[in-house]
């Protein structure tokens, strides 16, 4: 009895000690891995900054503000009222309902928030209003500092056509292409023929991969023109397009620049962002395995030339496409803090947010070009709430029922704006976090990334860790043989998860069996007859184990009484069934149950909003014909018929909000 009452308290004590030591250790590591520059507290700065953003980037900015002793104001939508960024800031102001157009893009409400809180400056983060010249203008009119470049630079670089003209003038390599407004599909075809196929068609106003189409012939050009102009019009309210030479097998390498208001500019080395899906980045690293110092310097110098040409101040990114012969072409300039900025911070030791704030306050840069080092190697994995088995990632939503970041490991940085219990909703970007690992060498950073992914506990939403882990352990990635076509080339039939070999299969089965036995033995423990070694804690989602004297980290995703065990092993989740010999024998008598025939049922593959329903009951659809279009996370997805059939019933209409698995259309 005494032993019984003692042990829980002892355990608590041990737990507290463990937790405390972990906590202090990861703080120390953070400082070391992130920033080598020292913040000078005597330098006068802003008293209060409003962060016009949400999620991880808002948290990221608030962290630096806290370090610099600056008070922070968060803005949030009503559903975000208990979000991490709103709780982290000193003040939080609600700026409207959930849809971004009514909250995070609602300039009137944000201007009101600035006035009522008395913020002296605004950090826009990325996305939302970060590259909105109108917003920058309104701030300037009220005497509030915009932490970013001035409106001239935003305007010049925000327009793809104008930015290319400026780049050309600044002697920056540009891609051969047509710089102008394209009015009709036929005009597009003619231009494409002049440039020579393949060509890329995209919206002038859009950033990233939005509104981008690649055409290999006239027909595809017409289609691309139609799609891109529609999407450009709906997403940006600006249907101007740009057609240019499409570079086959390119790498996407970008240069981080930092400039002040006194004409000084630096390049902070490159980031390799070639691993992309649907033109959106998934894994980034700095430096690139591909660049030699000559190319690096040439790219850096051109980037600085461009920055100077537009009197750029603040942090910015000049994106280049690099072909296999190390020819590089200017792609675009992002006049904001980039999502993947942490890897640059890791290798240079600069806190980019701190530098942006300094520059905005009017200070000169502290560094000279020769002060900018490449220390070690940093990798960033974008952990998304999405299903990697559906076209490398379709958004998923849900509540993070369990969530532990792998901060117990050294040289790991996690930038996130969510916590256990947070909702990943259809309203915002489905990014869970940016997982950054750092090492003296690339292989060290990669090995740490493997550990970090294995130790990352995410429950409640589908996530892309299986894909991330496969990418960073793929021989082609390890050897640095990558391009923006990496994913479709490596997984031509789509991502299927980790493929087990004979030995890994044995390891998985042995682990599942060991887990089963541990659970079975524990069930009998109340008798005090069986002693189980405390190696495994069944209450923990992590299962550290030693297989043939190597340490591996598995995760138990679920375990039930019927012997079904789902384990995350090598990133991918595997379902294993463990039965006693007797149960397995008897199980052979159990009938196979036939699952519902789904070929005639169309269910929503993801949560979102119905944009269009193209069929009505009684219609006959051909195999592959579009049935409806769902918009989720700002992406439109067309759902098609899997067989030729007559439409029996339609259960949705445009404008409906649908959940994953909802019945949309029934075929006969």
């Amino acid at each position, binding site marked *: 009895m005494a032993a019984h009452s003692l042990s829980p308290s002892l355990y608590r004590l041990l737990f507290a000690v463990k937790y405390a030591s972990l906590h202090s250790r990861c703080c120390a590591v953070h400082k070391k891995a992130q920033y080598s520059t020292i913040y000078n507290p005597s330098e006068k700065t802003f008293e209060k900054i409003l962060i016009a953003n949400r999620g991880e980037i808002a948290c990221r900015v608030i962290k630096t503000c806290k370090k610099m002793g600056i008070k922070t104001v968060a803005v949030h939508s*009503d559903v975000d009222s208990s979000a991490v960024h709103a709780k982290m800031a000193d003040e939080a102001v609600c700026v409207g309902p959930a849809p971004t157009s009514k909250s995070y893009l609602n300039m009137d409400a944000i201007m009101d928030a600035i006035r009522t809180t008395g913020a002296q400056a605004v950090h826009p983060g990325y996305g939302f209003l970060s590259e909105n010249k109108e917003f920058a203008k309104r701030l300037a009119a009220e005497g509030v500092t915009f932490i970013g470049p001035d409106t001239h630079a935003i305007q010049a670089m925000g327009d793809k056509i104008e930015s290319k003209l400026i780049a050309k003038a600044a002697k920056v390599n540009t891609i051969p292409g047509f710089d102008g407004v394209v009015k009709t599909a036929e005009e597009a075809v003619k231009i494409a023929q002049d440039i020579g196929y393949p060509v890329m068609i995209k919206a002038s106003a859009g950033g990233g991969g939005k509104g981008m189409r690649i055409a290999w012939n006239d027909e595809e050009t017409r289609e691309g023109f139609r799609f891109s102009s529609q999407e450009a019009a709906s997403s940006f309210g600006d249907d101007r397009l740009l057609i240019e030479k499409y570079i086959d097998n390119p790498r996407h390498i970008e240069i981080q620049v930092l400039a002040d208001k006194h004409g000084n500019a630096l390049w902070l080395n490159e980031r390799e962002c070639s691993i992309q899906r649907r033109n959106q980045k998934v894994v980034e690293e700095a430096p690139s395995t591909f660049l030699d110092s000559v190319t690096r310097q040439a790219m850096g110098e051109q980037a600085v030339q461009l920055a100077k040409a537009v009197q750029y101040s603040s942090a910015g990114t000049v994106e280049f496409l690099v072909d296999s012969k190390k020819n590089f072409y200017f792609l675009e300039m992002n006049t904001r803090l980039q999502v993947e900025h942490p890897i640059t911070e890791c290798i240079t030791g600069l806190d980019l947010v701190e530098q942006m704030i300094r520059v905005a306050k009017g200070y000169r840069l502290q560094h000279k070009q020769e002060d900018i080092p490449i220390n070690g190697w940093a990798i960033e994995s974008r952990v998304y709430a999405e299903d990697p088995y559906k076209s490398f990632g379709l958004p998923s939503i849900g509540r*993070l029922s369990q969530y532990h970041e792998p901060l117990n490991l050294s040289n790991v940085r996690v930038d996130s704006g969510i916590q256990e219990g*947070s909702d990943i909703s259809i309203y915002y970007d489905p990014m869970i976090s940016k997982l950054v690992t750092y090492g003296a060498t690339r292989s060290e950073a990669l090995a740490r990334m493997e550990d970090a992914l294995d130790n990352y506990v995410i429950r409640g939403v589908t996530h892309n860790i299986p894909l991330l882990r496969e990418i960073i352990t793929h021989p082609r990635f390890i050897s640095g043989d990558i391009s923006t076509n990496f994913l479709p080339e490596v997984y031509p039939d789509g991502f299927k998860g980790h493929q087990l070999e004979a030995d890994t299969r044995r390891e998985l089965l042995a682990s599942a069996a060991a887990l089963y036995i541990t659970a079975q033995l524990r069930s009998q423990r109340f*008798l005090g*007859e069986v002693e189980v070694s405390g190696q495994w804690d069944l*209450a923990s989602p992590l299962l550290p184990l030693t297989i043939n004297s190597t340490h591996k980290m598995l995760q138990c995703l679920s375990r039930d009484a019927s012997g079904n065990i789902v384990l995350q092993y090598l990133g991918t989740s595997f379902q294993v069934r463990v039965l006693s010999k007797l149960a397995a024998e008897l199980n052979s008598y*159990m009938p196979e149950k036939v699952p519902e025939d789904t070929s005639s049922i169309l269910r929503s593959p993801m949560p979102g909003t119905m944009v269009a329903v193209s069929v009505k009951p009684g219609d006959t659809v051909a195999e592959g014909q579009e049935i409806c279009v769902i918009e989720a996370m700002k992406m439109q997805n067309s759902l098609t018929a899997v067989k030729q059939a007559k439409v029996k019933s339609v259960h949705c209409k445009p404008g409906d909000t649908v959940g994953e698995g909802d019945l949309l259309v029934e075929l006969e």
Partner: protein
Amino acid sequence: FRGKLPQTSLLRDSRWYSVSHLSVKERIDKKRKAALIGGGQKRIDAQHKRGKLTARERVELLLDPDSFVETDMFVEHRCSDFGMEQDRNKFPGDSVVTGRGRINGRLVYVFSQDFTVFGGSLSGAHAQKICKIMDQAMTVGAPVIGLNDSGGARIQEGVESLAGYADIFLRNVMASGVVPQISLIMGPCAGGAVYSPALTDFTFMVKDTSYLFITGPDVVKSVTNEDVTQEELGGAKTHTSVSGVAHHAFENDVEALLNLREFFNFLECHDPSDRLVPSLDTIVPFESTKAYDMLDIIQAIVDEREFFEIMPNYAKNIVVGFARMNGRTVGIVGNQPKVASGCLDINSSVKGARFVRFCDAFNIPIITFVDVPGFLPGTAQEYGGIIRHGAKLLFAFAEATVPKITIITRKAYGGAYDVMSSKHLRGDVNYAWPSAEVAVMGAKGAVQIIFRGKDNQAEAEAEYVEKFANPFPAAVRGFVDDIIEPSTTRRKICRDLDVLASKKQVNPWKKHANIPL
């Protein structure tokens, strides 16, 4: 005197004895062999073909290896009519296997009806065997598990079979609240036979192979002219989602038996009792009209997220089931805002009441999570007797003397507030989350009554919300003991359960109470 006996006679006698002994041993072996094979290999194969296990295979899988101790293997039926007296119609053990064994070391008594012998039909002897183990279970205080797979009464035996049923029913009633009784329906169970499972604490079913009904589809057709299949009339889906007769259904025999083992598990676990649950701070949505899943709260709070839900598909507006807190078994009752706003109606009241009474009978502490907008209005409910049925839940919570801990997560409106294990019904510890609203009704309805005919309804509504849509009115009166941060709920419950372990409370002596049935 013995020594005086002639040598020869002794030898002869001993030879005679040994011969006779051998023949008894042979007979024993033969009988045992026969008992083990039940109705014969052909019928066993037929049973397997239906996707069902035999009575013995089921017992073997349910119990710990080699722990089964069989009783009455040699019992045979005593019917001599219709040719039943012939040797080929006698089966040692008759149509049921009975005995005791252990599940993860815990003693249980089991009977398993053998469909291969006369379709598992219940003879006088069959009933007698079941009664015997039930009596033994009562004397030692161990649970009884029935594995039902029986075509019904042994028609050849007539009233003796009926008497057998009644003997079992009586024991079910006498054992009720004394030892836990569990029925797992693994085949047909029809006619009067259904009342034995109905009297036990929990009835589980196997999908697609088990049926429970008073009268089968043929009789239904001839009496009411309804066309209905066995599955529709009394299958697992019907009873777990429509009638509420069964508490859980499993995919097949193997899964059912493995889950039944799990049901008996008492885990000693290392889930820290003072673990904070930060996710709970954000679970109750910003808008008070928006739903959330009460299971998210329950799973986050209990040990290892393991919750054995009872009746998950019936009256889903209330959630009931077992879990562990710091290793202790607890019963959990929670309104489910996700379904019908978590209101109380006839079905959910009855479901909750029966569960609460089970917990109280077997000394299992009850933890109640409250988010209830009230009782469901409407003629269907009133005509159906919501007053009578709602009273059952009220009765059950009020009479329960086990430790009772209540957490108001959001709404606790009207009479439903009183019912849901409130302080006034001898709740030991009653907490409110900051999102709690304890009031007679929602703001809109209240304002319409208080300010009837006045113009400034919106203003009045805001005033009402300010005054009552928060935990203070209850807290200042001591109707909740504390307003707690949701993330600390687990830690607080575990601590309270430690203290309440020595709770002693008795109701006034009575023959029995008169719950409004």
